[in-house]
């Protein structure tokens, strides 16, 4: 007998292959791995989300599309993968946050929101005629009790919590850089710099702030906000200086 042909089982999102895989979900992960890199890092006094956007051509306006979104005062989401799919999930996240507020008069907790989004994404792997979301999200924010949380979602509807992680193309490189340099007691400022550094290979000498998007939430305000272009530029200059110093030491 021949081995079963797996390609017969990838036509529908909801059909298992004989060896127990959902091929469409695996293909969705591949679409995420093709896009830009998105990094999230949780520190003792805040969380940072950093994205390096891929722009097509000199004439494109890089600010015209976004990868980091404000969901509620205390939550931000960074995306990797299909932007169009992501935007639908962003809308759902915003509505869920406000629905929680309407029902309970309190801000939604980060894990609650993540579970809601994941339950929604999961349904696209179980009902016929559906295609899974080709998007992964990093969901960052502060819970009511003051705890910083950082979650990642997967097209299957699975969720994971991290101290620091990356999604999208070359995310393995970013993760290994952060694994070697992450410290539990680092502050937000260091976290932002490490996230930027992890997005580029350490040999990079210049950074293009126009392509970078940074969103932060700090312990004091507990308000998520996007950094302005000037602030992003300042961070990229800081990191260029640091690398220059390192090179001179060598």
């Amino acid at each position, binding site marked *: 007998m021949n081995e079963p042909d797996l390609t017969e089982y990838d036509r529908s999102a909801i059909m298992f292959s004989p060896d127990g895989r959902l091929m469409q979900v695996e293909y969705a992960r591949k679409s995420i791995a093709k896009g830009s890199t998105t990094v999230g890092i949780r520190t003792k006094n805040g969380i940072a989300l950093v994205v390096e956007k891929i722009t097509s051509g000199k004439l494109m306006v890089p600010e015209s599309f976004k990868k980091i*979104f*404000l*969901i*509620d005062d205390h939550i931000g989401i960074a995306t990797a993968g299909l932007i169009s799919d992501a935007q639908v999930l962003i*809308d759902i996240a*915003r*509505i869920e946050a*406000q629905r929680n*507020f*309407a029902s309970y008069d309190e801000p939604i907790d980060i894990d609650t929101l993540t579970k809601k989004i994941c339950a929604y994404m999961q349904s696209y792997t179980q009902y016929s005629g559906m295609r899974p979301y080709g998007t992964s999200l990093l969901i960052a924010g502060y819970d009511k009790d003051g705890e910083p949380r950082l979650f990642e979602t997967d097209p299957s509807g699975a969720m994971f919590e991290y101290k620091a992680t990356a999604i999208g193309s070359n995310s393995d490189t970013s993760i290994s850089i952060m694994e070697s340099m992450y410290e539990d007691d680092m502050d937000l400022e260091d976290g932002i710099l490490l996230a930027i550094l992890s997005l580029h290979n350490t040999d990079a000498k210049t950074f293009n702030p126009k392509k970078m998007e940074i969103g932060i939430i700090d312990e004091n305000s507990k308000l998520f906000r996007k950094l302005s272009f000037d602030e992003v530029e300042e961070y990229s200059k800081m990191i260029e200086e640091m690398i220059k110093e390192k090179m001179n030491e060598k």
Partner: protein
Amino acid sequence: MKENEMHGTTTIGIVCQDGVVLATDSRATMGHMIASRNAKKVYRIGGRLAMTTAGSVGDAQQLVKIMSIETKMYKVSREHSMSVKAASNLLANVLRAERYYQYRVQLVLAGYDKTGPRLFSLDASGGLIEDNTFYSTGSGSPMAFGVLESQYAEGMNCDEGIILAVRALKAAMARDSASGNTIKVVKITQEEYKEIEDETIDYILEEMA
């Protein structure tokens, strides 16, 4: 059930040169009973926007909730705040949609946006009227209007507006049994949304005496 309504109230909105002033009493009544001596009747809905409520407490609170959520959703997706005109139009649509089973309220919605200080009054059937001077709602409004009509001056600033609001409320609270207890005042300018401290209001009242 009519008894369950906040008939008795005085709310005031004043358009000033540098912002708007909103003021209310703090008495909630059920018939002849004072249901609360510390009722909240000015609600912030987003950054530079607030509304005063008169009428059914439950109806008013539901509208405040709807408006808080709508302005938040608007802001997170469009990255700028809803204008006062847009907010009041939306609120009028909500009221109008329930034309045949009305929210029993009289509202003043005011704030500061790109166009400056703006003030709108709304009725239960969705009627929306902009006023560029002042407005008052509730059972104490005839007394308040009397003071406002005679003492409002075009181009007055928020500090003068606060004093006028306190004066008008004082008159209403003196003659309307359903308005009373303490005075709450909010000032909205380009720079800030500020709830005026009780001590400041006490001082203004003492100076008037």
